[in-house]
């Protein structure tokens, strides 16, 4: 998107488009990337509930893949994940490795 000039701004920086935060992709902030290991997942949905953004996709009560456009790599999902039999269903891996 072309950066806006000063003549194109809404008065008072008011945001008039509801839900426009969706357009602001924050995935590039990430230094660590969560990886979902489906065979260790018990579908508790803790990751979905704890994610401070909306980076854990869910459909019909089932967990889906991460949405890396918004995942900032905070690692809360991996911390909260109870896993199965001592094996985590989410692990954090350094980006670019």
């Amino acid at each position, binding site marked *: 998107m072309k*950066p*806006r*000039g*000063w*003549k194109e*701004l*809404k*008065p*008072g*920086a*008011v*945001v*008039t488009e*509801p839900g426009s935060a969706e357009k602001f992709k924050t995935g590039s902030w990430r230094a660590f990337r969560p990886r979902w290991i489906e065979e260790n997942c018990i579908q508790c949905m803790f990751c979905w509930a704890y994610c401070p953004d909306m980076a854990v996709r869910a459909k019909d009560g089932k967990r889906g893949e991460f949405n890396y456009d918004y995942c900032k790599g905070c690692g809360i999902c991996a911390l909260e994940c109870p896993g199965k039999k001592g094996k985590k269903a989410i692990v954090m891996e350094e980006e670019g490795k």
Partner: protein
Amino acid sequence: MARVVAVTGNEAVAEAMRQVNPDVCAAYPITPATDIMQRFTGFVSNGKVKTEMVLVESEHSAMSACVGASAAGGRVATATSSQGLALMWEELFIASGTRLPIIMTLVNRALSAPLNIHGDHSDGMGARDCGWIQLWSENAQEAYDNMIQSFRIAEHMDIRMPAMVCLDGFIISHSIERMEYLDDAVVKNFIGEFKQLNPLLDIEHPVSYGPLILTDLYMEYRRAHAEVMSKVSQVVLDVAQDFEKISGRKYGLFETYRLDDAEIGLVILNSAAGTSKDAVDVFRDKGIKAGLLKPRLYRPFPYEEIGEALKHLKAVCVLDRADAFGASYGPLFMDIASGIYPYKDRPLLINKIYGLGGRDYMPEHAELVLAELAEVAKTGRVKTFKEYIGVRE
């Protein structure tokens, strides 16, 4: 028919607010502005206005509540003085940066310390660059007239900026003068219905206020703010023209008094301008071409128009009722100096600091200044560029 009344400046401001009937007022008492909101809350209690009156715990909260109410989509007004304005500091910038047309009466009072409750412009001068429009008033009539005009100016769709109406503490706020009130219906018709812009309470069109704007856009927002300020002068003149039709009283960006053919002149704000005009008359009677300029729209400051009005003079004294510690000259002086700077032939400029903390400014003070200016004009030499008048050694 206009009503001729004998009232204090605060009473006149409260009456203007009653006639405007704002949606929300949030205020906290502080001398000498207390009297305005005290009278206004009386109107609220007696059902004379439909205003939602919010009595808050501090001026910080007062301006915060005004910001919220204005963003919600209401016509909002408040009043304060001195330390109260100082406590509002961060919200002043939020109100202007968010483009909320809040109207605030500022009854000018000295800042602590030492603690002083009297007339002084230090409070308003401190807030001169916070993005608000400032209209200054010589007397109760001007304060009343500025109040009514300020709603039209601030709420203009090209402007949408908060505005302060300034009047001198005690000297005007608590002194009784003869003045004229407009009819309620005339005021109501003049200010018109409040037009909302992106109101928070319009749930059909949800909006967000106060987003984080970082390095990629902040400077553009500031540039846009400056552009809006550059349009204020014309709106002030247009509104003044309409106001003249309902009141017979003429207003501009500033007032000139016997200035057209003057060789020496005084520049002075608010109530002391009245005293100074008498001194100008005394000098005119002596055959000395003296004049006066009294700024009305102080922010945005009409540099070009004031420079044009003063450039033909030989010597000018700018009188400041506020000092600017560390800046050497008073704040009004610095603005006037900027206004005349572009002209190759320009008057010699001197600065006097007067009337701090309500110290009396007497006709003889003005006459001494005019006598000094006559000497400067004759010799072309300035002995002292900045001095304090009416102060004991």
